């Protein structure tokens, strides 16, 4: 059932730190009904386009719609899968190649639900959330990225 409250803000300024991911895992140690976690980490890739290497992606979004869309995706994951917890964070602004820009974390009693729900949410976010990325090359020029 849909909760009647404002969607959570999933956006974090800049890269998602490995410390945030570790802390998030640690916070779940008190939830002893969980038997399996799955984590997806999206990382900025140093693609080479026309001989020029991507140094960073500068993310922007239609924030209100993206938060609402991602909240709906998370709610639908709870409807489809037997989940204990689900957390989603996405970067806003500049994230350098090699840094983390998406963190999806699912927890369930058993592994299959954790795997399946994590994959489901990642695919849905990529397909439905109005997030835009400017791939910035080492020379400062840029192109707009599009999910395949």
């Amino acid at each position, binding site marked *: 059932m849909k909760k009647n409250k404002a969607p959570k803000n999933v956006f974090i300024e800049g890269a998602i730190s490995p410390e945030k991911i570790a802390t998030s895992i640690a916070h779940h140690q008190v939830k002893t009904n969980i038997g399996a976690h799955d984590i997806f980490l999206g990382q900025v890739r140093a693609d080479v386009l026309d001989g020029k290497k991507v140094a960073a992606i500068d*993310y922007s*979004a239609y924030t209100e719609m993206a938060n609402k869309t991602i909240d709906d995706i998370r709610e639908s994951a709870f409807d489809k899968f037997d989940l204990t917890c689900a957390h989603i964070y996405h970067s806003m602004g500049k994230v350098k190649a090699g840094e983390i820009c998406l963190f999806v974390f699912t927890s369930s009693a058993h592994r299959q639900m954790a795997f399946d729900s994590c994959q489901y949410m*990642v695919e849905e976010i990529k397909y439905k959330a*109005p997030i835009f990325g400017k791939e910035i090359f080492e020379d400062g020029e840029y192109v707009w990225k599009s999910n395949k």
Partner: protein
Amino acid sequence: MTIKIKFFGVLAGIASTNETSFEIPTETNSDAIKEHFESIFTGFKNQQYQLALNQQLLNANSKVGDGDEIAFLPPFAGG
């Protein structure tokens, strides 16, 4: 009647703004708004994009009225 217009990504660059408003005397529709802004920002015609009305993606022409918000959304690149 005022309609709030938002541009994102490459389209905000072409329009040189993230936001504007559209004043019209009567209710309109999303196709008319698209046509209007494509005539102002001709570079839009060379781009792939979709429209959202009040934060819902549109897949058909829809009525647009006072206070509504139309967003011009280029391809998504999250993750």
